[in-house]
């Protein structure tokens, strides 16, 4: 297994390098000159001073050839130096290391919340297939599915401010155990919950027609135990796989939630870096994002045989 993980890691490195090269190239050749951006945002009463701009460009090393710049960037990266933000001059590593835990905690809690809420709901819906309970659960899931986070977020927030004046304003970050986290967490989890409810339901319905469920019933096992042990357990494997993949959805959704709720996570940092064409930050985010996705995929792959004893013996032809 360790070898497998190592292999995945080794395969990941060139791909992320390539992606970063691509992003770097796009930023370098396409996007505006970051130095100009900073200075041209000053209102009109500033005289145009090309010399000053060139001086800054030179001192930042931005007038070197493309590959040299990229090479030195990677070289610094290998030494643990992510460089400094072009817009604020702060160390990119400091920015990322402050933002990443926020996003990470948020995503983790969202996955847990999704699992805790969605799997039982999906199970209940499937067990009551085509009844009112089923329709109610499915309907709610669809409703959640249809409301984008950037619509749900602001609406819920303003409603809360208006309905409960003086209560903790659901804005900003006070740690994962802060009450303010409840609303963003909910909004972030709406779509994953909707997705997992539907997938759990479908998976359970499939398992329901399996012979071994009939066997369990034929043994006289109580329905609750049948549902939990014989139906839910086999369903967990595909659902957990989905939960892993849903990390991507959550990472993407976090951008909106972090913007709306003022959370200092990677999503907000991304938008900020993009508006500032701050490519040291963009590159670092690309690296971190790709790493997170790789890890969550890997986690799913490693978790799979733990959840499904069959996986150890089935033949895989990869």
């Amino acid at each position, binding site marked *: 297994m360790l070898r497998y993980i190592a292999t995945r890691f080794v395969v990941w490195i060139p791909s992320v390098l390539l992606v970063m090269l691509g992003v770097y190239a796009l930023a370098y050749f396409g*996007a*505006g*000159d970051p130095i*100009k*951006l*900073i*200075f*041209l*945002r*000053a*209102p*009109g*009463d*500033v*005289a*145009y*001073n090309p*010399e*000053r701009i*060139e*001086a*800054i460009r*030179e*001192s930042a090393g931005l007038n070197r050839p493309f590959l040299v710049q990229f090479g030195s960037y990677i070289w610094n990266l290998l030494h643990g130096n992510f460089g400094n*933000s072009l*817009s*604020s*001059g*702060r160390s990119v590593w400091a*920015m990322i290391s*402050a*933002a990443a835990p*926020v996003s990470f905690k948020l995503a983790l809690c969202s996955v847990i919340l999704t699992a805790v809420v969605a799997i039982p709901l999906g199970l209940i819906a499937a067990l009551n297939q085509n009844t009112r309970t089923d329709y109610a659960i499915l309907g709610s899931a669809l409703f959640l599915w249809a409301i984008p986070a950037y619509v749900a977020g*602001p609406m819920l*927030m*303003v409603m809360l*401010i*208006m309905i*409960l*004046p*003086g*209560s*903790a*304003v659901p*804005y*900003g*970050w*006070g740690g994962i155990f*802060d*009450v303010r986290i*409840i609303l963003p967490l909910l909004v972030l989890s709406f779509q994953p919950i909707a997705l997992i409810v539907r997938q759990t339901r479908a998976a359970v319905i499939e398992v329901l027609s399996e012979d071994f469920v009939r066997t369990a019933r034929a043994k006289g096992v109580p329905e609750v135990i049948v549902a939990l042990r014989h139906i839910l357990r086999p369903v967990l494997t595909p659902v957990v796989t989905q939960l892993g993949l849903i990390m991507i959805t959550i990472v993407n959704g976090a951008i909106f939630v972090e*913007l*709306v709720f*003022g959370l*200092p996570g990677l999503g*907000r940092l991304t938008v*900020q870096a993009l*508006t*500032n*064409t701050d490519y040291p930050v963009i590159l670092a985010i690309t690296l971190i994002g790709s790493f997170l996705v790789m890890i969550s995929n890997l986690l799913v792959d490693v978790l799979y045989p733990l959840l499904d004893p069959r996986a150890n013996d089935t033949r895989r032809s990869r």
Partner: protein
Amino acid sequence: MSNQNNEASASQPQITRRNALKLGLCTSVALGLFGLSARIVMAQEGQVLKVAHPAFNQDWSPLRGGGPPYRWNSAWWASPMYFDSKGDLHPYVFTSWEPAADNKTWTFKIDPKAVFSDGSKITAEDVKGSWNVSAMPNTKNQRADQVLSKVAGYADVSAGKAKEISGIATPDEGTVVVTLSEADPIFFMRLGNHIAPITKASQSRGEDGEEVADWYMPTSDAVYSGPFKLTSIDLDSGKLVFEPNENFFGPKPKLARIEIDSIEDNVTATSLLKSGEYNAHTELVTSTIVQDLGASFAEGPLIPTSQHFWFNSARAPMDDPKVRQALIMAVDREGLMKASFPDGPHKKTDQVINSVPGADKSGFEPYPYDPEGAKKLLAESTYGGPERLPKLLFVGISGPAIEAAAQFIAEQWRQNLGITAVDMKPQQDAYAGPDQNAVQIFRDDVGTRVPDAVSYLAGSIASTSSNAQNKLGGYKNDKVDSLLAEAATKSVDDPQRVALALEAQKAFREDWSFIPWYAQAMSRWATDKVTGIDKNLDWQVVAPWDISIA
């Protein structure tokens, strides 16, 4: 009986689990309630100004000379002099300013009582060091040019060729003598702001002459010169706290604290202001602000800043004056205001300048609204009509009011001229690079920090201005340039100064290069309860020590 129950449940693992679940649920509900009430319980220890800030700024260095953090510079830094809301100049760190006869050498005296927050004196060396570091290329001070560009030796420092501005001399601890490279009768006015603030040079400037990273943070034991000092700053959650500076050499502040929280979303910020959670905002522009927070929230005096749509005449089809004229004449500017700021606080304007001496009787003839004439002009142009016109691209369409205005203009062109190929981008950033030429219309503001028409026009239509270079497509009108150059040499009380400037503006009119939009009002951006929050031309509170909350 409860005992029995407990025993029973102990022997059955499922029930224990359920109890555990219940307990967990109760705990989380209790914690939630506690968290909710915790906010209410928090005691008021004096007047606290809670400010919503529209951006998560990662850089609050006072040396930036721009950006949202700059709006609060006056709270923690003292400037050489300051303008009040009526435009009168008052002494602050400098008690006197004397030009030599040729307006090229200026002598400034520092208030002997002026001290930093640690009680140490503000010296001439601090002034010189602060200005030097502002000029350094890596400092990225956006507006340093505006204050210091005429000081002898500034150009060398800003181009990275020197580390000390040669034109600044410090004959003694309390005196600063500045030599200019050219005569500037209004040089003293340029210092009445926080663009190049006076800091403790030993802290802000490193041995290499560059700005020391994070020098202004409380964690760096920074000292401040303003009525407040920064006591805590959390860049990642966007929270800053200012508390009174006990050693401040001016009046004692009325506030016990200023808290600045980053709240990017305007609708959220509005709700929080409405609910009383916050009482001020750094800059809040929404189309429903009057309905939301009342007219008094956003109102304020007009200031010498205005927003216009600038034509890039280097770019087709703007290279044809007839096209430009047609495009301007096809827009009903009354409607433009109605579409963008129907309820104020800004006012429609017809010319480049406003709110500076001479602006009210400038003799600038407003561009007419004449759809028929416009159509005819377009037909007479080299493009012969709307069909062969290349697509018109707007940039800088970054807010709801601006978007409404741009869409109104586009619709006017469509209806009056039949032009359909119009596109608008939220950001001008992407077009600031080598491909800037793709853009025909830039929305941007021009203005001045001093009540002076020459400075205003020099920064907007003179060929050396960033506006002319970047927005007007390298605009150059020799007549405008020479008139402005001549006006700049006239002293402040010379009527020729204004007259020449207005002449230049009239000359600019004939080039048909912009759609005038509005004259900007200086909004309070504070609730009714907040008093003493008058602002200067930099949108900074004139006298932060006067702010109080009713």
